């Protein structure tokens, strides 16, 4: 058994710094590279791609990334774990195999985790009595069943562990908890059991620290952010994990950013509800038990984490089509920037009303004035306002209304208040609103399945 392993975060979300994974595998020693690709509604985008072409449905950046880092990973024995398989982990694996062939890689084992996609099983599942009620509103899923675009269960770390035990160099999953990506290598390397709840919770906490990339190593830091060195070359976080559950959060030495009590603490507080009850498929972690020790030199020890048994349910993330939306901006300069922006908004709304368009919501905001903090923003006199960006956004179940809204923006430049600019890039087009439906499902109704694809 190794006495410690280094797990590196390759990205905080799909759309993060493209070179981050490359820097993680080249700038210092690591054992695992973990990457999260799936925001709440990403699955709906991938599902649509698969509907059009059965070969698609996974994060298409992955084969290119693998082309770049596979030779390095093979040489340094770095394993890669990611949920970028989306709704087609098998296709993703095959695409990687193809790339590996092209660049002369000799052997490669890719583990895929299936079973999370329950879109085709919904009728069967509902007939067993599982209502998949919306966790926020309590409504039964039958109200949106016909509009569903995706339905995926959040698996935890153990299917990934199984893939690693089968010898996988790369593990591609569908929907998996972000924390599970980081926890799995620890379970695998240190032989933790399903009932080692304190250790599973420690790994989960490490996963939470890593899951947003550089947000724990100096990015988006509301403490003394100006003192963070060299943010241009910010190092993404690395969890140095030990068999007893201790974890040291750090980053490669020749990188910018900072890992300190404060940068780690901010990330620990990010997107959590009740800290005593951080629920995952593998355990329930108690964030009020976490101890942090700043060791200096961008090393923070995370220890004494406690946790409890997992629940009987998996979380399910479903998405459904719920109308269309669009937003547009125009910029008004001094003098009277705010007055002009408000007048333009009134003119626009009157025109939309005269056209008998139908909207579920129209929202107006004044960027540069109070768009972020609303009533808390400092009241400024017109003379002190240099420019205002008027932003208007609409939402409707009628596509035509949203489309027409997009055509009413440019005219304001010639038919509205003066000293207006900032209109380039064509008409805002309606985009589909994909709403999120979180639910719970009894674990016994869903089984993960692990397969190995080999080169």
């Amino acid at each position, binding site marked *: 058994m190794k006495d410690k392993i280094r797990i590196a975060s390759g990205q905080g979300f799909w759309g993060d710094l493209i070179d981050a994974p490359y820097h993680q595998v080249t700038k210092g020693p690591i054992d695992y590279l973990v990457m999260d690709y799936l925001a*709440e*509604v990403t699955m709906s985008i991938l599902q649509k791609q698969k509907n059009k072409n059965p070969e698609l449905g996974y994060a298409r950046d992955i084969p290119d990334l693998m082309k770049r880092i596979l030779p390095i990973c093979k040489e340094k024995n770095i394993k890669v774990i990611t949920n970028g398989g989306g709704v087609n982990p098998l296709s993703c694996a095959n695409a990687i195999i193809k790339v590996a062939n092209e660049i002369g890689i000799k052997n490669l084992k890719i583990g895929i985790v299936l079973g999370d996609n329950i879109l085709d099983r919904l009728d069967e599942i509902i007939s067993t009595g599982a209502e998949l009620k919306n966790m*926020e509103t309590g409504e039964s899923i039958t109200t949106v069943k016909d509009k569903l675009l995706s339905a995926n269960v959040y698996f935890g770390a153990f299917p990934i562990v199984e893939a690693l035990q089968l010898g996988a160099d790369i593990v591609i999953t569908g929907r998996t908890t972000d924390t599970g990506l980081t926890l799995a290598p620890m379970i695998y390397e240190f032989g933790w059991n399903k009932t080692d709840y304190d250790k599973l919770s420690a790994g989960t906490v490490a996963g939470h620290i890593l899951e947003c990339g550089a*947000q724990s190593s100096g990015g*988006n*830091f*509301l*403490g003394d952010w100006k003192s963070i060195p060299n943010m241009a070359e910010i190092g993404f976080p690395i969890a140095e994990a030990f068999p007893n559950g201790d974890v040291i959060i750090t980053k490669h030495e020749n990188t910018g950013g900072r890992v300190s009590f*404060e940068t780690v*603490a*901010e*990330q*620990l*507080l*990010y*997107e*959590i*509800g*009740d*800290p*005593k009850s951080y629920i995952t498929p593998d355990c329930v972690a108690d*964030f*009020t*038990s*976490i*101890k*942090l020790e700043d060791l200096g030199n961008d090393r923070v020890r995370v220890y004494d984490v406690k946790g409890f048994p997992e629940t009987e349910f998996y979380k399910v993330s479903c998405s459904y089509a*719920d109308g269309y*939306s669009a*937003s547009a901006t125009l910029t008004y300069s001094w003098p009277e920037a705010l007055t002009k922006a408000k007048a333009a908004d009134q003119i626009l709304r009157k025109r939309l009303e005269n056209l008998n368009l139908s909207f579920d*919501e129209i*929202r107006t*905001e004044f*960027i540069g004035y109070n*768009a*972020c*903090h*609303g*009533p*808390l923003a400092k009241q400024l006199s017109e003379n002190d306002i240099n420019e205002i960006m008027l*932003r208007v*956004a*609409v*939402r409707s179940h009628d596509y035509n209304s949203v489309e027409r809204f997009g055509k009413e923006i440019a005219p304001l430049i010639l038919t509205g208040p003066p000293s207006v600019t900032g209109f380039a890039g064509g008409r805002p087009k309606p985009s589909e*609103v*994909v*709403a*999120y439906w*979180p639910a719970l499902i009894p674990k016994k109704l869903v089984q993960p399945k692990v397969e190995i694809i080999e080169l």
Partner: protein
Amino acid sequence: MKKIKLTEIAHGRSGDKGDAANIGIIAYNDEGYKIISKYLTAERVKKHFEGICLGKVERFELPNLRALNFLLHNTLGGGGTVSLKHDAQGKTLAAALLRIEIEVEEVNE
């Protein structure tokens, strides 16, 4: 009584959980945590965010991190992809909370 700017004694971060925003506030030291623990109540935060937070405010304590976590319900205009707000994920709300000024009892050294 004296007024203390929260931003001088604490930092934090905000994010989204559905239509709720979560705001974590972390004191720089134990003295600061005593202050926020006593004075930064859910009611105080709810009042601060009048017009922004349309639902209830829940407060959780993490003394191990010198921190408080607040959940502000019905704050993000529907949340996620449904919201039309510019800051639909509430990323600027921690900074908004740090604007707060707290009146504390003067303590004789």
